[in-house]
């Protein structure tokens, strides 16, 4: 697997930015209006399936320089939970699932 660029891992992002990005991406994959996404509702309720869920994890990796497991969106099913989890990943720390890679 590719090794991650440390500098990208340290990139600072704020909660609003993350939330906006996630909502837009989720809305695109389930083909709905971003304005209608409730950040405290499980995305599966909007019809997000496993393909989109894994794809979002991969998109997050590429955009924010983190390494995530394929089942990230099962463990953190709402937009707000994902945002919180991402913010808790301390900069420079690659991720909490190091042992899985």
């Amino acid at each position: 697997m590719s090794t991650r660029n440390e500098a990208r891992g340290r990139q600072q992002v704020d909660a609003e930015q993350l939330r906006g990005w996630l909502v837009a991406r989720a809305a695109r994959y389930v083909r709905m209006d971003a304005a209608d996404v409730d950040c405290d509702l499980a995305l599966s309720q909007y019809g997000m399936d496993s393909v989109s869920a894994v794809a979002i994890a991969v998109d997050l990796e590429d955009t924010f320089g983190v390494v995530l497991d394929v089942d990230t969106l099962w463990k953190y099913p709402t937009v707000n939970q994902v945002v919180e989890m991402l913010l808790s990943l301390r900069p420079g720390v690659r991720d909490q699932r190091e042992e899985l890679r």
Partner: protein
Amino acid sequence: MSEPSTAGGVVARQCPVDTSLHSRLRSPDFAANPFTPLGELRERGPVHRCEPPGSSPIWLITRYAEGAAALLDRRLVKDPTAAGLPAGWQPGEGTSQLWSRDLASNDPPHHTRLRRLVARPFTPRRVESLRPGIEQAARDLRERMVKQDTFDLITDFAGGLTTATICDLLGIPAGDRELFQTWGDRFFTVTVPGQADNDLFVAITKYFARLIVRRREEPQDDLLSALIRDTGEDRLDGHELISMAASLLITGHEPGVRLIGNALYLLLRRPEQVQALQEDPTRIPATIREVLRFDSPALTSLVRFAAEDVELGDVVIRRGDAVLVSLVAANRDPARFADPDEFRPSRDTTGHLGFGLGIHFCIGAQLAQLEAEVALRELLPLLPHLRLAVPVDDLRWHPGLQMYGIRDLPVRMAGAESGTPG
């Protein structure tokens, strides 16, 4: 090994060749020549009990009639849970969550539905439409290969051709194929997802999730897009799409390479067959069918479990026991094919078990034969000039009970120095 057990009034056949059939089947000689030991077993009886340590019994079927009957028997299932989860097996043995919805590890009614949804776009027309692309790939591979003094017909040709073919079918962009090279050989030795390195499994899952998302937004004329297409009726869900894409990519690779390799090795040693094929290339498909019978790359079927007690041949297979059909042994059963140990492309190969039988009959059979046909067409003119570049004894064979075939086939052009005649 324990005393012969009594099953339904008949004595279960215990490892008749060795004290342990299991260890016999794992010996290094077996890989190069499974025919002799399996032939001995077949003569002794149709069904043989094997007791691998830590696992419930496995029954190995070596005769055609019983093998075909087992493949058609709906009481022998793929999902061990339906057989009471015998010792040594996990639910959905070897399948990770996201890969569990493939064809090979599911039983009816799930299998029926999945197979229908995959078979619909996987038409003979779609397979045949891949021919020009496969031919182009074969030409490119040959041209690159023959620039070297010695080359390997398997790694330099058969492997690349098989990868290109399945990637074309699925619609994997040409630029991404290099990714598979970096994942390396490891990738294609994954036959059961649970055995995959975890990082490999994760990489493949992520790769396909993203590709599927892209194809949802911009469909192409490929199998993946066709599987995704919303026809308004029943269709594959996300789990199923990932399972199908990953399993189609992986399942067919190893046997596809072995089929081409076994065919080439056979022909290298039979110049008269090469000449006959050059004179009449329409004989190539029949020749490939005979390779599938005579040198079947699938040594055994995939494992099945008895969902209830099943009488087979002269034994009773108890609920929970595992069953393997030796396709190699069945295909050389003299009760089914006359002079089975003779390679005879003109024979009627109808009923050979090289692709299995029944509801799990290989869905890639047509594709596999097409790529093998293209491979032979491309290499026939070259074959009379090729010599093995290593002594015969140095050739390596695929280990294990699942696959029979030559692993590498290093050759050089005749006339180039110090050849060992093939």
